[in-house]
């Protein structure tokens, strides 16, 4: 060592200790390796060359999904067979022949197999699924002639089925094979390349609960994959996923679906005093059964290319201007702030003018002097433009909109909920680079312009008013139950997400005003059910001044007054302007309320109302 050990730097003794530590650890590792490779090497050689434990996966049954009655499942599993090929087990050069033979047996094109197993993956040691839902007879045929099909095998595979498919497609969602991108994200959380994953709705939201744990059957094989010893099969039983019980009542779900019919739109039915969703329907819908297994790709692309967007859950994933339904909020705000009493009147002429923004009354002659109860019952635009702009003002109006849950997600336990939008002066400056003007406030006050809400948010607005200012988080999951025993593992408790301190007098008057809508007001002609008193509000939004297209809203609750809050329900119906105009939202709600409170199916409801001569519109 010609260099001098520098005194300023590293203490020499420590460098020596460190170096010795390095050397000692190296020698220790080498000693271990010596015993592994040289002393016991032959043991491992035998293990690696002659005997391998090969395991086959036994898939876990995905948990079933029930409605609140917990009797017949909404989503369950059917057994089916899948045929798989392990390309590495086919001798080189024989792939084409085996593929052709297998395709023949399964009644598909050899090209279909080639597409799933391209030549570049002929050496991949992995079972690749060729076809699912293979009939049992075909499997028997394959088993009898298995020597002609090297590398081909079959597996039982539970297939997800939805008996009540289209009524609750958006709610339940659908499942599909995990994609490589999804696997990258979910790796280490119990997922693998074979996982079947919930892709939307409840299936996606609670996927981990539904998954269960795969089992395995392990057998000992030699290096060529042949079995060694018949009895040596070890079975690790799979653990089924948890069963889910939803808050949804499938009779109400079917009733709502039938009441909406073939109209683009959505329906939400919820219990205001717990936030339980009793029904959630969106149209157009899809058949989740077609989205898994053979032909799923075609069905999927067909649905995805449908311009009516069938995958969209319009109850929570799209937002619209609330139109006149927002007048409920203005009524509440004006009464709560004591800007007006129920006895005060305002002159509602044919027009409301603010600068060059003119709001026309829908009745050309105007209403004259009316109080707030009459204004809501008749849905006076001029009255509420005056209340919104002249009485409440921008700031108070927008803050009430926010407090009632507009512009943010409600937090329902379904994926993809949209927040809607409460426009603010700051927002407008950012997006349009133009200042907020009085006309913008007027637009919000009559539910047009930038303000947009989801049907669920409107239902929540009503829930707050019905429930004395308390809003529960809307939720779909009621209970989690054990997949084996059916024992309740977890029960979802109602959770308060917003408490507005509104005066009892305000609440009472607002409800009275909404009752006036169906008794003497705009909705009277169509709310014909005699079994329950309904209070609510209609809404009609013009989406363009050129075409004659209108969104139709109706949001209501019933019974109007009750001693038992448990029986109250809120119904929000939204029928898109894409449909032919028939003012359907209140009509559908009428059928739904009648069906719920008379405990009838859709057909029975229609028959019953016809018998009572109260169904003039159908």
């Amino acid at each position, binding site marked *: 060592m010609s260099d001098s050990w520098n005194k300023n730097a590293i203490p020499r003794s420590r460098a020596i200790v460190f170096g010795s530590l390095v050397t000692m650890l190296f020698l220790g590792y080498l000693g271990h390796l010596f015993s592994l*490779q040289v002393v016991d090497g032959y043991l491992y050689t035998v293990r690696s060359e002659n005997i391998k434990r090969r395991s086959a996966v036994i898939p876990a049954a995905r948990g079933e999904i029930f409605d609140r009655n917990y009797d017949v499942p909404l989503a369950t599993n059917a057994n089916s067979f899948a045929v798989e090929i392990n390309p590495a087990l086919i001798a080189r050069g024989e792939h084409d022949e085996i593929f052709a033979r297998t395709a023949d047996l399964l009644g598909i094109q050899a090209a279909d197999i080639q597409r799933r197993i391209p030549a570049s993956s002929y050496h991949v040691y992995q079972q690749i699924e060729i076809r699912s839902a293979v009939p049992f007879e075909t499997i028997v045929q394959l088993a009898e002639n298995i020597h002609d099909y090297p590398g081909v095998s079959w597996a039982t595979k539970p297939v997800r089925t939805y008996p009540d498919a289209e009524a609750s497609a958006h709610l339940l969602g659908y499942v599909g094979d995990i994609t490589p991108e999804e696997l990258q994200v979910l790796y280490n959380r119990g997922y693998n390349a074979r996982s079947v994953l919930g892709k939307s709705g409840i299936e996606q939201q609670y996927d981990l609960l539904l998954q269960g744990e795969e089992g395995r059957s392990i057998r000992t094989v030699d*290096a060529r994959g042949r079995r060694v010893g018949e009895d040596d099969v070890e079975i690790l039983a799979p653990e089924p996923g948890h069963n889910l019980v939803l808050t949804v009542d499938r009779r109400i779900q079917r009733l709502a679906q039938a009441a909406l019919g073939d109209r683009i739109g959505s329906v939400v039915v919820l219990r205001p005093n717990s936030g339980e969703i009793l029904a959630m329907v969106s149209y157009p819908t899809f058949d989740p059964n077609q989205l898994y297994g053979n032909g799923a790709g075609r069905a999927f692309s067909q649905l995805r290319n449908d311009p009516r967007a069938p995958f969209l859950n319009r109850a929570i994933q799209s937002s619209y201007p609330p139109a006149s339904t927002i007048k409920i909020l203005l009524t509440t705000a004006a009464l709560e702030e004591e800007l007006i009493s129920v006895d005060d009147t305002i002159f509602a002429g044919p027009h409301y003018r603010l600068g060059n923004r003119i709001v026309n009354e829908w009745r050309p002659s105007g209403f004259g002097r009316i109080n707030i109860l009459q204004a809501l019952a008749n849905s006076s635009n001029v009255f509420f433009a005056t209340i919104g702009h002249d009485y409440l003002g921008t700031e108070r109006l927008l803050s009430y909109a926010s407090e009632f849950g507009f512009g943010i997600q409600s937090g329902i336990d379904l994926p993809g909920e949209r927040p809607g939008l409460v426009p603010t002066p700051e927002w407008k400056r950012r997006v349009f680079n133009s200042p907020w003007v009085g006309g913008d406030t007027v637009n919000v006050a009559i539910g047009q312009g930038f303000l947009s809400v989801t049907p669920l948010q409107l239902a929540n607005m009503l829930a707050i008013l019905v429930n004395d200012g308390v809003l529960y988080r809307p939720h779909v999951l009621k209970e989690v139950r054990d997949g084996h025993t059916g024992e309740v593992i977890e029960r979802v408790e109602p959770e308060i997400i917003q408490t507005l301190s509104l005066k009892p007098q305000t609440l009472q008057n607002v409800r009275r005003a909404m009752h006036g809508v169906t008794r003497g007001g705009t909705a009277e002609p169509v709310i014909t059910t005699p079994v329950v008193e309904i209070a609510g509000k209609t809404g009609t939004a013009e989406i363009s001044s050129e075409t004659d297209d209108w969104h139709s809203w109706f949001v209501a609750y019933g019974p109007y007054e009750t001693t038992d809050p448990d029986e109250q329900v809120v119904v929000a119906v939204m029928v898109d302007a894409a449909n032919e105009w028939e003012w359907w939202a209140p009509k559908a709600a009428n059928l739904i309320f009648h069906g719920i409170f008379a405990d009838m199916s859709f057909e029975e409801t229609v028959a019953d109302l016809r018998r009572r001569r109260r169904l003039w519109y159908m």
Partner: protein
Amino acid sequence: MRSRSIFGFDVYILTATLMLLTVGILFVYSSGLGISGDALSHEYVRQIIWAVTGLVILVSISLVQYASLKPWIPYAYLLGLVLIVMTLLFGRVVNGTRAWLGVGILGIQPSEFMKIATILAFAVYLERAGNSIKQIPYLAAGSLLFLFPMALILMQPDFGTASVFFPIFLGMCYMAGAKVRHLMFIGLTALLVLAFTMLPAWEYYIHGSRIPAFEIFSNVRVKLMVLAGLAAVALVALVGLMMLKRRSFYWTIYSIAILFLSLAASLGTRAVIRDYQIMRLIVFLNPYVDPRGAGWNVIQSVTAVGSGGIAGKGFLQGTQSHYHFLPEQSTDFIFSILAEEWGFAGTLLVFGLFLVILLRGLYIAGNAKDSFAGYMASGIVTMIFTHFIVNVGMAIGLMPVAGVPLFLVSYGGSSMWTALAGIGILMSIYQHRYRY
């Protein structure tokens, strides 16, 4: 002197580095082969590109006067932190870890480069601190330089990469003359935190039945009571120390403090450490707890290594690897393939080459012109050493699976450049070792 250097390079380290790079490329190629012998992946081509570009980096750094780097070090450190934060926000998720930053196939792992940046920053700190590193406040303040990147990397979550920072800290402090009992305190506390976090899982998976005493680790209320008890004993000992000035009281407080801190910290760690990480540690203790799941890697890897025998099965002849029984075989488990195909002989070669780099690195550290260079060199040596011990230990079942690459050999651009940049700094220190 002249005989050892070409243009002033340290020939030993350079030769060992080049040989390891070659071995690495050969086995990255081997790992990409399927059963029938066709190449399934072309990772080796990229590995060659990274090796060549990395060597350019090595040479460039070695020609630079390391002292001129000093003003840039704080910026490099901060840039590294910013990049890791960006990774957390916009990074790509690969294998459940958000550790990659980049577009398309071009991605970097900022956490790899952060190791070098942290070493350099801490070397600056140690030089400034001088002898004060013997005092606890200076030691604690310096540890912050490591805690920031570790915390951020744990959030990715990348337990393996984060854990490498810890030995580097201890190694650099040791070489800078910090008190051994302080370092032991830190080391023992960390070990006990891990142990206390693990024990409930150990009880469940390995021991099989409930042990009443383990309530201490699994029941938060009992844990808090034990903590209060420990604090009381420590207080008594502290009073004893002040009044009697007896050495034994010092060590009582010392051990109780370790117990107290690690027990308290284990309250929080269960929230940070993920279930699968616990499972990896459990299967390290006994892979047969979960032979089809998390234990699979360990069992397959040890089988591959053991079946290599003395001379190995021959290059490209490994069966375990070509049946793709090993996951991540070009990165985490490259050593298993090497040990399978080249046997104990190949193992000896790789160990020898790494030993040359490490011991030569220590020699360079000791002969450095100034303490700053000595600390840098110590940090780099510790980094390479830690990677080696963790990666090889993992392949032979002596360490838990942690996803730490074997420097210079494993597939991967970021770790390759990190290693070669580190060796470049060693070279620069060697070339500029004389005072003029």
